[in-house]
């Protein structure tokens, strides 16, 4: 079964970005994963300055250079530096090889600061991957929940969103995004708790569920298990493992002349 991984990072490995992507690709090959979406650099900054944002994206651009069509980049932006973010979007996506946006924990995603980014993303057919986690132990100051993403998505029906970690507290997160057909659930980054994928498929439909691993912080084993181990149809597994992400990225990949099979 073809597998596209919608959630990979360059942190945790030593070496140049090219070497680090090489290590991710080698591990992916070992585990039968065909394509990787990579975002953020070796160091994760909660609220990156424009310089830190550019440095993180430079690492990804550098890492992608020798792995064309095998690895895709998502540009890391910070709504607290809107002008710099839009310039970075132009550099990395509109004029560069990257295909989507990553927003993390700098700013709550239902803030009006995010609207300009979403509008530009939609025009470029770039999906937006928004980290979400609702923690009973307390969120980071700018950390978004799935409910906040639902509010943003309601304002922008023309844009496409991926709800990172399906809200973390996925039993909550899946419910929050359910009414918004333009929001997809990322399975990556949490524990391989049984029933997660089954609930996502039941409530959202398999067409709105996307495999992501969050490697190298997580293991491929625990993340692939969420799909391989789920009591869902083979057709649903095919959608989750590759077809959905491929469908989301096809418009922008076509614009960039990347062949999609």
């Amino acid at each position, binding site marked *: 079964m073809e597998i596209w991984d919608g959630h990979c990072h360059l942190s*945790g490995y030593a070496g140049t970005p090219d070497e680090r992507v090489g290590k*991710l690709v080698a*591990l992916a090959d*070992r*585990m039968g994963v065909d394509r990787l979406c990579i975002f953020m650099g070796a160091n994760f900054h909660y609220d990156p300055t424009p310089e830190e944002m550019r440095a993180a994206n430079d690492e990804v651009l550098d890492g992608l250079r020798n792995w064309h069509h095998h690895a895709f980049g998502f540009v890391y932006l910070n709504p607290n530096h809107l002008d710099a973010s839009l310039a970075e979007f132009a550099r990395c996506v509109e004029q560069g090889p990257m295909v989507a946006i990553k927003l993390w924990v700098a700013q709550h995603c239902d803030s009006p600061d995010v609207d300009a980014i979403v509008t530009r993303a939609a025009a470029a057919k770039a999906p937006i991957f928004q980290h979400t*986690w609702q*923690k*009973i*132990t307390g969120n980071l100051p700018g950390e978004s929940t799935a409910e906040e993403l639902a509010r943003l998505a309601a304002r922008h029906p023309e844009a496409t969103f991926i709800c990172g970690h399906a809200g*973390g*507290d996925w*039993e909550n997160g899946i419910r929050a995004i359910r009414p918004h057909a333009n929001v997809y659930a990322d399975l990556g980054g*949490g*524990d*391989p*708790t*049984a*029933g997660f994928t*089954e609930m996502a498929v039941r409530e959202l439909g398999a067409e709105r569920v996307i495999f992501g691993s969050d*490697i*190298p*912080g*997580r*293991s*491929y*084993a*625990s993340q*692939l*298990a*969420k799909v*391989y*181990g*789920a*009591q869902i149809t083979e057709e649903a597994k095919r959608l989750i493992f590759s077809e959905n992400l491929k469908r989301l990225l096809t418009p922008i990949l076509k614009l960039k002349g990347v062949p999609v099979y």
Partner: protein
Amino acid sequence: MTQELIDTNVYIGPWPTRRVPGDDSAALTEMLRGHGVTQAWAGSFDSLLHKDIAGVNARLAQACAASGGLLVPFGAINPALPQWEDDVRRCAEEHRMPGIRLHPNYHGYALDDPRFTALLQAAADRKLLVQIAITMEDERMMHPLMQVPHVDVLPLPDLLAVHPGLRVVLLNAFRGVPMPLVQRLAETKQVCFDLAWLEGAAGLEVLKKQIPLERVLFGSYAPLFYFASSWLKLAESPLSETERAALMCNNAAGLLAAP
């Protein structure tokens, strides 16, 4: 001959806040058999919150007896309950259990508590293997009425020095026990760890540079975790045939055979 697979970390019964596939013991047995498990060490999720621990253990023994030899019961002991010593006796004498499974964080005692010292003594006297579950759920995901810390095992190395014959297995340990302490515990040669909560890319390849693989056991934490998670960890890291066999069965079998 087919390869034996001993799963040292399964539970029967429903998780308190969620139903999952395989949370009745017949379905669990069938699922484990389907994955090639030849023996599974089972505790009971009922033991987390129930006060009638003797009843929980009797039901566990019954479920294991009905599994055709696949499930091996590890009874619960809560040393905060009156007469817990009799639960130890019943586990050993009546149910013939090879070990016990403790949940100090759910039962509200720390490992420097004198009751825990007495419990270790009782386990050592009866040659029971002691499993301690460190973490049952990511602390960020817990039900607001059931927020439970990881078990702090810092007192354990000193306690084990008193009982050189005692063998301890820490279940779900790799989120809650810092690596330097994992290494210190591994050095005692009295403590093993199951791999259900091992995370990170090529986790076993990384882990075997930190502790000897003879200290590591296969454990799935099924049915709360997808069984495939631990199973695929054996594929994610390059392992020799000897290492694979040690993880899959030899290390665990050695614990039950220990004098």
